[in-house]
């Protein structure tokens, strides 16, 4: 099994190397004449007032948390999908119950307005 993963390891390394080489090439070939105006962050001609990293609406966290839960659900679905034709009706029903419980959570989210975006 492991011999199949060697090409992947090499490919990931190549994928990263391509990006690194291209950026290095840009540094080698490109001009470099920095000045403070050029390097200031773009803000439609204003001077930047403050640090741009600001507090954000808590809603973004909620999206991220719900994403984790659904991602886990998908992780549970993967092995089920592969062996469904072997485990048959029993497997189907056990997944139906699993999804049923989570659909309750989904409906709760919906009704609570957690999926609403103002």
């Amino acid at each position, binding site marked *: *099994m*492991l*011999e*199949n*993963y060697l090409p992947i*390891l090499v490919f990931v390394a190549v994928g990263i190397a391509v990006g690194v080489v291209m950026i290095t090439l840009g540094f080698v070939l490109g001009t470099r004449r920095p000045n403070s105006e050029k390097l200031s962050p773009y803000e439609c001609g204003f001077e930047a007032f403050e640090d741009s*990293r*600001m*507090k*954000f609406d*808590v*809603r*973004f*966290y*909620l999206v*991220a*948390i*719900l*994403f*984790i*839960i659904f*991602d*886990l*659900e*998908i*992780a*549970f679905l*993967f*092995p*089920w999908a*592969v*062996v469904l034709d*072997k*485990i048959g009706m*029993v*497997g189907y029903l*056990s*997944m139906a*119950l*699993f*999804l049923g*419980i*989570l659909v*309750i*959570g*989904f409906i*709760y*989210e919906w009704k*609570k*307005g*957690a999926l*609403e975006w*103002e």
Partner: protein
Amino acid sequence: MTFELFVFYVFAAILVFAATMVITRKNPVHSALFLVLAFFTSAAIWLLAEAEFLAIVLVLVYVGAVMVLFLFVVMMLDIDIATMRAGFVKNLPLAILIAIAMVIEIFLVIGSGSFSLDQFAAPLPLPADYNNTASLGNILYTEYMYPFEVAAVILLVAIIAAIGLTMRKRPESKYQDPSKQVRVKKGEDRITVLKMDAED
């Protein structure tokens, strides 16, 4: 030394390095990103232990989801590093005490002999067509059905808890209701015709 062992040591070294950086970096965003690296390398090590499904799911769930949340939180909170470091010296003795206790616990568990290498011999290399995911699926949904459903309930609790903790309806925020928007009629909903006397 076989090639696999060599790869293992490389990944193990990266993992230890990344883990050290997580706890020593001053910038929390850097720490979080080193934690991502740590997850990646541990996934590679799991893969070396022939746990194909778990290794990829580790990347999918922890790197792809959990760490995104971490980064969201760490990036968007203005953490004042100075105030955070103020309590460092004061709490140091307590922290050292806890650390020592944990180290002793770890040694007691590992040293008890139930985790030694002769208890768990290295697994034989599996054939190329071995399907880790399928062998997991064959038992998870039938033999281990009850724990599987318990997992669903735990996830349900997590959904409800997340909403309970973070949902705050602010009175001043405005919503758009798409179903209302769609149902708008051309005539009466858009314009009101007022009857009034002509003025001169």
